């Protein structure tokens, strides 16, 4: 079958009301689910899964994909409005989105998030359609040594999100790495810092840590200083993103999309590191670096592009290899299996109509996302106008419900509160939270892949330099570390001269 034939077969499959209705419904469910902290895109997809059992395969899968895409965007809404990332992927959006909302530019931030999300989504989908085969074969050349070097490089993001002090950022990262060691050891299965508590054996729940670190400190700082609630009456969020601003951020959006496509096509990394990498790259390249972290619209654009760029690309390993890249695609893969479809190279031969039907649906989903997202923004942005004395307790309750629901475990609510305390102390001591989070995600991956590499090679370190991919990332890491150190020395010198001439 030629390309056109396949395309027509796919079109035939999706050109019915149900398919489009499912897609739109999915995007709507996703946006709402993503916007509820603790619900997260993952849970929204998991909850929708049982409803797809009775649908035709294509309708069911489009529904799930719609939820996924909507969820990744929806997560940015609470990230901007109440400093609580709705999904882990939108944690980077908090860094500049929330300061913008505090300045009364919530509408602008949300608008930019939507524009960036849709653009990145489209780029990601196109990458899936045109480069699936190529990127998939690339993904398979990633064994533990390659992963180790990639993650080592990704850890340099910490420098980009540390704010004004690299050492404090480093301290934050160390804290994240240490807390991530809680749980069972990968290789021997022995306990690490579990204190005989079965709830600790699985490690600290990521979403509980995430919400504890971002949302709870805000509430605690209002408890610390209740007067702050009436001082800054946040002006109405009735402002829109201009085309001018979109054009200014366009470069960052495209860069973020490609970072997302690259990281998305490799199984096991996920959207959150991609958003942070995109953010730190945008900051590094931007002329107004200082404004990043204080409400820079380009920062919002870059992070949202980074996480939505992953959304289409994670389907590459799923469809081309049958390997799910993250939890969400694992659930979507479950839906394929339930309908008797087996993702993998043969699917491009046996069910090519479904593949192309999905492609068409994905492109349409970017458009749906744009319209439904605009509606959601209009509805949600007035959250910024609710008096804080009512809003913050409500956020607290929402966090309790959400964190409980993630794993049906009250212990996680306790983890969230404990992390909230840690986050508040960090805030008082001006230690940035973002490096903590990145380290918490990447630390276990770094250790596991290092030890897997050592197991593979029988403890010979040379395996970490075994091929061009590892060389590439070693070089990249070396260059980045060199640049960071040089910038650090310059900053110190600058400060020293500043001291002598007050």
């Amino acid at each position: 079958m030629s390309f056109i034939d396949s395309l027509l077969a796919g079109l035939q499959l999706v050109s019915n009301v149900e398919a489009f209705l499912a897609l739109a419904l999915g995007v709507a469910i996703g946006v709402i689910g993503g916007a509820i902290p603790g619900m997260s895109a993952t849970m929204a997809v998991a909850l929708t899964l049982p409803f797809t059992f009775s649908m035709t395969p294509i309708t069911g899968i489009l529904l799930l994909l719609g939820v996924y895409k909507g969820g990744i965007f929806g997560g940015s809404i609470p990230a901007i409005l109440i400093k609580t990332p709705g999904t882990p992927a939108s944690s980077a959006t908090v860094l500049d989105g929330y300061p913008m909302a505090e300045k009364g530019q919530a509408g602008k931030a949300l608008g930019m998030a939507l524009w960036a999300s849709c653009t990145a989504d489209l780029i990601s989908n196109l990458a899936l359609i045109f480069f699936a085969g190529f990127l998939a074969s690339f993904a398979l050349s990633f064994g533990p040594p390659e992963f180790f070097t990639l993650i080592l490089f990704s850890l340099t993001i910490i420098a980009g999100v540390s704010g004004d002090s690299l050492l404090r950022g480093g301290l934050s990262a160390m804290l994240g790495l240490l807390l991530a060691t809680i749980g069972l050891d990968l290789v021997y299965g022995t306990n690490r810092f579990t204190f005989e508590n079965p709830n600790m054996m699985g490690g600290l729940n990521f979403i509980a840590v995430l919400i504890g670190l971002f949302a709870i400190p805000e509430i605690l700082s209002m408890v610390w200083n209740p007067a702050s609630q009436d001082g800054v009456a946040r002006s109405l969020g009735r402002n829109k993103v201009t085309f001018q601003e979109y054009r200014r951020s366009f470069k960052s959006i495209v860069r973020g999309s490609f970072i997302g496509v690259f990281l998305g096509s490799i199984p096991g990394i996920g959207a959150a590191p991609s958003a942070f990498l995109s953010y730190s790259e945008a900051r590094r390249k931007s002329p107004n670096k200082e404004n990043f972290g204080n409400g820079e619209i380009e920062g919002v654009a870059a992070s949202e592009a980074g996480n939505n760029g992953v959304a289409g690309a994670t389907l590459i390993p799923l469809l081309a290899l049958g390997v799910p890249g993250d939890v969400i695609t694992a659930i979507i893969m479950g839906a394929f299996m339930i309908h008797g479809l087996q993702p993998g190279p043969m699917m491009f031969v046996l069910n090519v109509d479904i593949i192309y039907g999905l492609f068409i649906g994905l492109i349409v989903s970017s458009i749906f996302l744009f319209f439904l997202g605009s509606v959601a923004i209009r509805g949600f942005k007035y959250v910024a106008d609710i008096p804080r004395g009512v809003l913050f307790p409500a956020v607290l309750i929402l966090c309790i419900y959400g964190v409980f629901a993630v794993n049906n475990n009250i212990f996680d609510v306790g983890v969230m509160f404990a992390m909230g305390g840690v986050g508040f102390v960090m805030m008082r001591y001006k230690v940035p939270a973002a490096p903590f989070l990145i380290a918490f995600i990447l630390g276990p991956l770094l250790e596991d892949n290092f030890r897997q590499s050592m197991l593979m090679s029988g403890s010979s370190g040379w395996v970490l330099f075994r091929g061009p991919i590892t060389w590439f990332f070693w070089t990249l890491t070396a260059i980045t570390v060199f640049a960071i150190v040089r910038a650090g020395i310059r900053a110190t010198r600058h400060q020293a001269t500043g001291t002598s001439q007050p």
Partner: protein
Amino acid sequence: MKFVKAAFIGAMALGVTATAAFAEYPERPINMVIPYGAGGATDISARTIAEPLGSAVGKPLVMSNITGAGGATGSVAVQNAKADGYTMLFARVGSHSVNPAMKATLPYTLDDFRFVTVYEINPVACAVTPASGIKSMDELIAKVKDGGVAYSSSGVGSLLHLAGAMVLKEFGIEKPLEAATHIPQKGGGAAATAVLNGTATFLCTNSSALASFVANGQLVPLMVTTPKPVEGFDAPTAADLGKPALEQLVGWTGIAGPANLPDDVAEKWGAWMAAATADEGFRSKMEARGSVIELMNPKDANEFIRGQYTIFRALVDELGMRIEG
């Protein structure tokens, strides 16, 4: 941590009134704990049976995924719950035969649960990549003897971990732990990927987890452990290869309650499961995924699980695989 633990124990009792009248059981929704994540084999199996089971029970079944520590977190939640039949567990081979056999550090034992049924058996298959050039178990064993062979698993103490060692042992490798390297991964998907990208040489896992890779020609099956051949797997059975002992190496899913679950509750579950597994739609969905539907009553289920545990425990002790703190 004590208060959190106490809080947790209480939570899982889920608001039980002191005078629960069992005559009317069930009078409200039943909380079904799935100790593994959404989209996994246990989750899909549980959600498939929930449909016919819900109509047999007559009250809604609320499915809760409580994941972590290879199924231990969710299992402990049910172990500590009130034994009134309103909190039940989807037990799995990993959490309830391999883990107890391998982990000395596990916070529960088999005695902490009462099994009301086992309803599904999953054949185990061993597979390699076509690129490895291995076409039979004999070739794999020859290669293991040469050295440098590794196998992947979904984690320490998982079925895959034990299966790799058990298969090698049965095929005459004296010290499988030294002859082949075990490379643990995080989760079943990652374990299969590790074989695909050459990190590990082979893996032995539930046939359903391998079905799509085998159908796509990405993996070559070498053996299945069930007495009957598995559809879609062009591979001999363990008995064909003269290793009938490996027939014990199968995956299963069952339902369990806390240890002192009353007899009448267990009996009711027996009846409900008989009705649920008779459902045509359920059977066809499960069989399409390569499962064998085999309903056991509470007594048989207990015997089956303990039998498997004893065999695994003996092997673990012989090979020194037990995980001690």
